[in-house]
């Protein structure tokens, strides 16, 4: 019973925390641009406002356009049940492993791309085409990085990966781990539409990827999609944080350890958000056709991760 309560808490926490992560990155970027910036909780106001607004739908759109936001949102929420945000082992651990999480996120991308094509806007098609290209090219990296982790842990199940790194702290510093971390970090940037792959703050339609697909959305639909994007970012952050640096994740399910887990999660998220903010200040967006090169860098990193994990066996 405790387990199920934990699952619910975890999902609620992810839902609640996600917009804050986006706000945090924006605030840090503002500070790095010597601006005062919006407060960290600004995205919450924005979501609340969007839920109160009317929806304007294209006259070319079909039922898919109305269904997509719900599917996108549901796919990431379902994924939060499987990701160890606070504790392991979760009661739903047997339902799906890391691969399932990846494919759930791909399901969201798939529907969002279709929704981008649906109203017949050229921007939507452009966004859909680019998003699927990036998603497809990121996939091998994800798979290999997962397997580099799984090789060490002897399982692709998230709980076991975390547990194994906790019991053998040395393995967190093993090259396979570090390289896989690097590879997944690049993929995180690509999949969540951050610089240098996509600029979340762009107003130029021709440079957009994620934004171009959601140009047609408004009101509550937009709120769902933006919220889902934020949760996706949080999922990637908690994967990066909890799979590679698992300390703090609760294994005992006592209130004290859970509190520690929550605090450590916050710390990890803040550190990762800071890394993203600094990176986004430092680098410019890549040309779309240099993105595959970036992704092949991450692929090679993942390949090296797998290679060095069987070197050390």
């Amino acid at each position, binding site marked *: 019973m405790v387990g199920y309560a934990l699952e619910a808490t975890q999902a609620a926490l992810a839902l609640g925390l996600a917009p804050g992560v986006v706000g945090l990155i924006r605030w840090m970027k503002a500070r790095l641009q010597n*601006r*005062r910036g919006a407060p960290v909780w*600004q995205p919450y106001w924005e979501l609340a406002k969007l839920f109160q607004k009317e929806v304007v739908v294209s006259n070319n759109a079909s039922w898919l356009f109305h269904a997509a936001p719900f599917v996108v949102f549901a796919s990431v929420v379902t994924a939060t049940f499987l990701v160890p945000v606070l504790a392991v082992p979760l009661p739903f651990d047997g339902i799906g492993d890391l691969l399932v999480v990846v494919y759930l996120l791909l399901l969201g991308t798939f529907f969002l791309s279709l929704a981008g094509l649906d109203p017949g806007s050229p921007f939507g098609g452009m966004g859909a085409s680019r998003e699927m290209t990036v998603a497809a090219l990121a996939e091998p990296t994800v798979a290999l990085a997962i397997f580099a982790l799984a090789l060490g842990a002897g399982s692709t199940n998230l709980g076991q990966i975390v547990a194994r790194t906790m019991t053998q702290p040395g393995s967190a510093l093993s090259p396979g781990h570090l390289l896989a971390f690097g590879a997944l970090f690049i993929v995180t940037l690509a999949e969540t539409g951050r610089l240098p792959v996509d600029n979340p703050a762009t107003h*130029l339609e021709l440079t957009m990827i994620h934004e171009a697909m959601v140009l*047609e959305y408004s009101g509550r639909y*937009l709120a769902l999609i933006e919220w889902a994007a934020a949760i996706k970012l949080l999922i990637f952050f908690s994967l990066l944080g909890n799979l590679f640096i698992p300390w703090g994740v609760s294994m005992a399910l006592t209130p004290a350890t859970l509190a520690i887990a929550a605090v450590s999660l916050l710390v990890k998220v803040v550190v990762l958000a800071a890394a993203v903010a600094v990176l986004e200040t430092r680098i410019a967006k890549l040309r779309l056709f240099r993105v595959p090169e970036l992704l092949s860098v991450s692929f090679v990193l993942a390949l090296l991760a797998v290679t060095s994990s069987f070197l050390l066996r």
Partner: protein
Amino acid sequence: MRLFSKILQVGLATEPLLAGDEDVVRLLHDVDARARRLFGRALAIREVDAGSCNGCELEISGLTSPVYDSERFGVHFVASPRHADMLLVTGPVTRNMAVPLLKTYEATPAPKLVVAIGDCARSCGVFKGSYAVAGSVDQIIPVDVFVDGCPPEPADILRGILAAVGRR
């Protein structure tokens, strides 16, 4: 690395709440409560250039600069009218831009506001009477607030935006 040390040296460039401009500060506090109800302290703006000389655009882009930093009030610019709560319209509306302006207005989900920026938007300015001009902004779409000036200062624009939010 050099970049970050520069960032550290400059520090915060934003002017603290438009120092010296007591009006705006009072207005801001006045508006805050009502604005929260209507737009939840988050205002998304779509800028429409209906035929301006780009003088007003220059000033509007000053809003997002570190000095004025409109983002701290929750005011930010978006890429699509579908995401917007407010349209900032500049310039006299030219014949070619009349329909697009109307379409943009229609594409914006309710509740929505329109702020017309600059003298041209109110009265077509020096372009008045030109064969290429369809009329002032309020002849095409309903306007909530006019901001005068040629071009108006960013502070004026900000004041206009906040006034529009306050009017509702």
